[in-house]
């Protein structure tokens, strides 16, 4: 296992910048997820670690070795591709053992090793099949087996679960989590699914338009999103963001917006600084921190019921505010509410996130600035 370091890495395709000056340091034994919307440069970043793309500028290190211009075959890495890339003309045994074949291992030795790995992944009985003769979940495990069959410094995953149905995806996710804890592998895992990133990562690098906007452990990303972008990307459903007008009042912060009632927030130094630039702030509140409150309650936001989705243990209650924007709450009751009825959703002040007019988080007092 080894660490991976990006040093001011940029990758352009023609005039388009896919990765823009990324600095990233992945520790030995870390499982880092690159999380972001489609097209933000996750795959390109991963392919640069693999050597399948060469950075336009900047350097990449694996361990202490500068691998920037090194051919993929010389990097001692493994990669699981989104489309699995199983060789259609080889049976599973040969597919899994292929990395050992190019390393010059004997047939018995490599098939023996392939069988070991296949047994762990519960595809040991399928070794004589062709990839076209097994299910999608089995194909996924075969490509994982091929990545695990040889010692590797870094394991790279490009949305390996995105072609599986929901149930298989959960199962495979659990297995990867187990594997990571068991092997302590260094892994870089690309996904656009925040739940996957939260479940697997030791640290998440949230990417937007070729840049890393936040790099922190999952719980940190969840509790203290660095920007409105991160806040809106992480969480299921993501954080509600409400534009508010801010004002001073007796050392307290007064926030106003249509249908929003908010008691005194402390006027932190961070807020004071932000207000010098603009009075337009964004208030963020996670759906799971909202509850149905009495009309006119303090610290609440109100609107008309737009949708009420019962998910079993919880319901997603969405209200539409006067300006047409929507706020969703995750509520652990199944009270029936009429469509269009007035609903007030309450929250407690400790769960309020504030972002300045540029979308950057305003740290609360005592909170480490980001």
């Amino acid at each position, binding site marked *: 296992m080894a660490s991976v370091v990006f040093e001011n890495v940029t990758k352009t395709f023609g005039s388009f910048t896919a990765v823009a000056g990324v600095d990233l340091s992945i520790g030995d034994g870390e499982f880092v997820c690159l999380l972001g919307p489609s097209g933000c440069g996750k795959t390109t970043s991963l392919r640069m670690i693999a050597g399948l793309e060469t950075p336009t500028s900047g350097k990449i290190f694996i361990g202490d070795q500068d691998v920037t211009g090194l051919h993929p075959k010389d990097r001692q890495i493994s990669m699981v*591709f989104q489309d699995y890339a199983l060789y259609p003309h080889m049976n599973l045994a040969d597919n899994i053992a292929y990395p050992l074949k190019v390393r010059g291992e004997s047939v018995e030795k490599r098939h023996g090793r392939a069988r070991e790995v296949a047994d762990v992944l519960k595809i040991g009985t399928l070794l004589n099949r062709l990839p076209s003769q097994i299910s999608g979940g089995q194909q996924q495990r075969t490509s994982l087996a091929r990545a695990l069959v040889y010692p590797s410094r870094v394991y790279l995953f490009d949305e390996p679960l995105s072609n599986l149905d929901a149930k298989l995806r959960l199962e495979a996710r659990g297995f990867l989590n187990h594997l990571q804890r068991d092997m302590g592998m260094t892994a870089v895992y690309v996904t656009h699914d925040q739940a996957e990133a939260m479940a697997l990562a030791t640290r998440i690098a949230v990417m937007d338009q070729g840049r890393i906007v936040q790099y922190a452990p999952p719980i940190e990303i969840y509790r203290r999103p660095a920007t409105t972008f991160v806040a809106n990307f992480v969480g299921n459903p993501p954080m509600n963001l409400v534009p508010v007008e801010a004002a001073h009042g007796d050392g307290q912060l007064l926030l106003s917006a249509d249908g929003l009632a908010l008691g005194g927030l402390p006027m932190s130094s961070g807020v004071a600084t932000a207000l010098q630039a603009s009075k337009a702030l964004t208030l963020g509140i996670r759906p799971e921190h909202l509850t149905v409150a009495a009309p006119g309650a303090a610290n609440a936001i109100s609107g008309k019921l737009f949708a009420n989705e019962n998910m079993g243990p919880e319901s997603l209650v969405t209200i539409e505010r006067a300006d047409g924007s929507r706020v969703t709450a995750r509520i652990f009751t199944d009270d029936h509410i009429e469509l269009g009825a007035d609903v007030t959703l309450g929250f407690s002040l400790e769960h309020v996130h504030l972002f300045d007019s540029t979308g950057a988080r305003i740290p609360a007092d005592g909170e480490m600035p980001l």
Partner: protein
Amino acid sequence: MSGGAFLSRIGFSVLAALLGVLFALPLIWFIFAPFNARAEMGLALPDPWTLSNFATVFQNSFAVRALFNSLIQSVGGVILIGAAATLAAYALSRSTIPGKSAVTYVLLLFSSVVSGSAAMVPIFLIISAMGLIDTQLAVILVFAGGLLPTAMFILRDFIDGIPKSYEESAMVAGASPLQAFFDVALPVIRPGIVVIVVWAFVNIWGSFLIPFILLRSSEQMPASVAIYSFYSEAGTPIVTLLAAYALIYSLPVVLLYLFVSWRFGFRFFGGIKA
């Protein structure tokens, strides 16, 4: 179904049947005549069925030699075209050279000129300047020049449809680009190569004009040209021999199609099943 529609359906069926018969007649002749010692241009059931026509063909050393020449020229051309088209198409598909599509299109445009009859004089001049007139190599080279661009074009399209992740995963796993090509890419491309090979073989095997112009001596002639030797001194065709020879001549192509269809299975679209 109304009466009018019924009648028009009958009319259509009759017309189709007539057309079918019209096209079948030469084929039936083609199958019967070789086995008929008294075959003529007219259609007749052989009586008795005999192989004497074939015996005469095989006693004719020039005719046998010509079949062998056809084989040399076709197989030689196919190997050259297959190998060169595979490598070129692979490079054109996978490399990131700017303007690579333009290269293929320009080649394609010129290829129709190169093997077309309009270019016969310049081709003749070039080949004679190279001192290759009356050699099998000349025929092979001219066909390679004429067929390669189309072969490259078809194959490139085929390879474009194959995910790059096959070779990429091989290289990440430790394979050199050459290993990735031979272990992973080539087997996946093979059905496309088979299409090219069959198509090139049929083209060369059946061609008349190019070998006719480039070859002089009877020892070099392919079967397509040799067929013209089955004429009597008076200039009338010796139908019995012609029929037997034509059947032998067409067999390799038929067998090739059967083999490919059995081994790979033709599909109408996209050539051949993987």
